[in-house]
C-alpha cells in the first residue's frame, strides 16, 4: 500500500469517470427515482421501505456497477497491465477505485435521500447499516470485477446482484405470503434486515449484515485466488 500511488489512481479514475457518459448516467437513476417517489406522496412521511429501495438501487447501479465497470474496462482495454507492471500494486489499484466508487455512492445517496426525506436515516444504527451495506456491495462488485473481462459482460453480472440484493424490498412487495419459503429466505437478505431494524431497538440485524459483509469479502478473496491461478 502506498498513499501517493493510491492518490494517483484515484485522481485518474475520477477524471475518467467524469468523461464517461455511461458511468455518469448511473447516479441519475436513483435520484430520478427519488423525485418520482416524492411526487407520489408530497409532504407525507415516506415509509422506510421506500428509502431502502433507493438505497438498493444506488448500491447496485452506482456502487457495484461502478467498480465492476472500472475493473472490466482496465482488463478489456489492456491498461491494467501498465498499472500492474508499474510500482503500484494491485491493492493500490483496487483501493483507488474503491475510493472513487465510495465518493460517487456518497453523493448519489445523500442527494437522493435528501430529495426523498432523510430523517429516518439520521441515527447511528441506520448510518452504520448503510456503511456495512456499502461494503457488501463493494466487495461483491470487486469479486465480479476480477472476472469480468469486458464491459459488455458487466451488465450481465450486475442484473442478478441488482435483483437479489438491490431490489429485495420490491420482491417482497409482490405479495408473498408470510410463511412462503422464498419470503423467509429474502427476510435474511441484508436490505430486509436493515428495514426490520427500524422496527426495533435491536442491534442484531446489523450483526446479520456484518455476516453478509464477511461472506462478500470471502467471495472477493476466492475470486482473487481463482483469477491469479489463471496466469
Amino acid at each position, binding site marked *: 500500500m502506498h498513499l501517493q500511488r493510491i492518490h*494517483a489512481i484515484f*485522481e*485518474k479514475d475520477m477524471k475518467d469517470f467524469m468523461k*464517461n457518459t455511461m458511468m455518469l448516467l448511473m447516479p441519475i437513476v436513483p435520484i430520478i427515482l427519488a423525485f418520482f417517489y416524492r411526487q407520489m406522496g408530497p409532504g407525507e412521511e415516506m415509509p422506510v421501505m421506500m428509502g431502502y429501495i433507493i438505497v438498493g438501487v444506488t448500491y447496485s447501479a452506482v456502487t457495484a456497477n461502478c467498480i465492476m465497470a472500472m475493473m472490466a474496462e482496465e482488463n478489456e*482495454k489492456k*491498461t491494467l*497491465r501498465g498499472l500492474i*507492471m*508499474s*510500482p503500484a500494486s494491485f491493492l493500490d489499484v483496487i483501493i483507488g477505485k474503491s475510493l472513487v466508487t465510495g465518493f460517487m455512492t456518497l453523493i448519489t445517496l445523500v442527494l437522493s435521500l435528501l430529495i426523498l426525506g432523510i430523517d429516518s436515516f439520521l441515527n447511528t444504527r441506520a448510518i452504520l447499516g448503510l456503511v456495512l451495506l456499502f461494503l457488501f456491495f463493494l466487495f461483491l462488485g470487486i469479486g465480479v470485477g476480477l472476472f469480468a473481462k469486458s464491459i459488455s459482460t458487466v451488465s450481465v453480472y450486475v442484473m442478478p446482484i441488482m435483483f437479489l440484493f438491490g431490489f429485495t424490498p420490491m420482491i417482497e412487495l409482490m405479495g408473498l405470503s408470510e410463511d412462503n419459503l422464498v419470503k423467509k429466505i429474502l427476510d435474511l437478505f441484508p436490505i430486509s434486515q436493515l428495514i426490520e431494524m427500524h422496527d426495533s431497538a435491536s442491534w442484531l440485524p446489523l450483526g446479520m449484515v456484518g455476516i453478509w459483509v464477511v461472506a462478500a469479502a470471502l467471495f472477493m478473496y476466492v475470486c482473487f485466488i481463482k483469477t491469479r491461478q489463471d496466469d
Partner: protein
Amino acid sequence: MENVVQVNGLRKVFHENIAMDDVHFNVKKGEIFGLLGPSGSGKTTTIKILTGELKPSSGDIEVLGMKSDMFQTASFQSQIGILSDNSALYERLTVYDNLKLFCKLYSAPLQQIAVTLREVNMEKEGGKVVSKLSKGMKQRVLLAKALIHQPKLVFLDEPTSALDPGNAAYIHRGLQKLNEAGTTILLTTHNMEEATELCDRVAFLDQGKIQEMDNPDALRYKYSTHNFHIETFEGKKLVMINDVKSADKIGQMIADGQVKTMHTDHPTLGQIFLKLTGKELV
C-alpha cells in the same frame, strides 16, 4: 563490462508448446541490444519474462542484479521502462493526464512530462485527448510512458512498428541520445535497417532458440562471401573472387574506364537470417 541482463538456459513452455528452449544471452550495461526473429519466435515472450510479467518454466535469469523472484517488487519495477506490444493508454484522458498518472506511480517529478514529450516529438500534443490521436502518435505517447521515470534499462517491443519513416528516424535519434546518456536498451524489431543502425549487438531468434548473435557489422562481414560485384558500362555483371589474381584484372578494368559500379558482397541482416533459418524475417 557489467551485464544488466543475464539469461542462462531459459526455457518457456505454454501447455505443450515450447516457446523458448535453452536460450542464453547477456546484455551489457550501456548497450542497445536487438532481438530479431519472425512472428512467433518468442521475442515478446522473452521481454515478458525479463520484466516479470511471465514466469520462466526453467532457467537462470538476472536483471539489474536481481533474480526473477524480485521482478514483482516496486524497487525492480521503478528501475525499468516497458513498451510492450499491446500496451494501452486511457482513451478518454489527455496525453498529459496519462503521463501524469505514470509520473506519480513512478514517483518522478512532473517536469518530466514536458521533457519526455519533447523526446518523442509530441510536445504540442500534450493537451489532446488520446482517442483523437493517430496510431503513430499513440505509439509515441506509449514510448514517453516507458521513459518518463528515466529508467536505467528499457524494454521496447517493436517501438517503431506503427511509425512513418520520419518519426521512426526521430525516435531512433532519441533512443541513441538516451543510450549515450547511459540507458541500456533491449528492443525487438522486424525492421532490419533499424537493427543495423541502432543495435550494438543483435540476436537472431528462431524456433525458441538463438541462432546467431553478434554486432550487426561483424555478422555482415562473417556471412559475406567477400566477392566483388562489378557492373560494366556495357551492362555486364561480374562476380570476382577477392584474391590477388582478381586484383590485376579489376585494376585493368578500372584503368579502361569500364567499371560502372563495384561493391563487395555485404548481406543484409535479413539475408543472413534467411540463410540461417530459411525464413524471411518479416
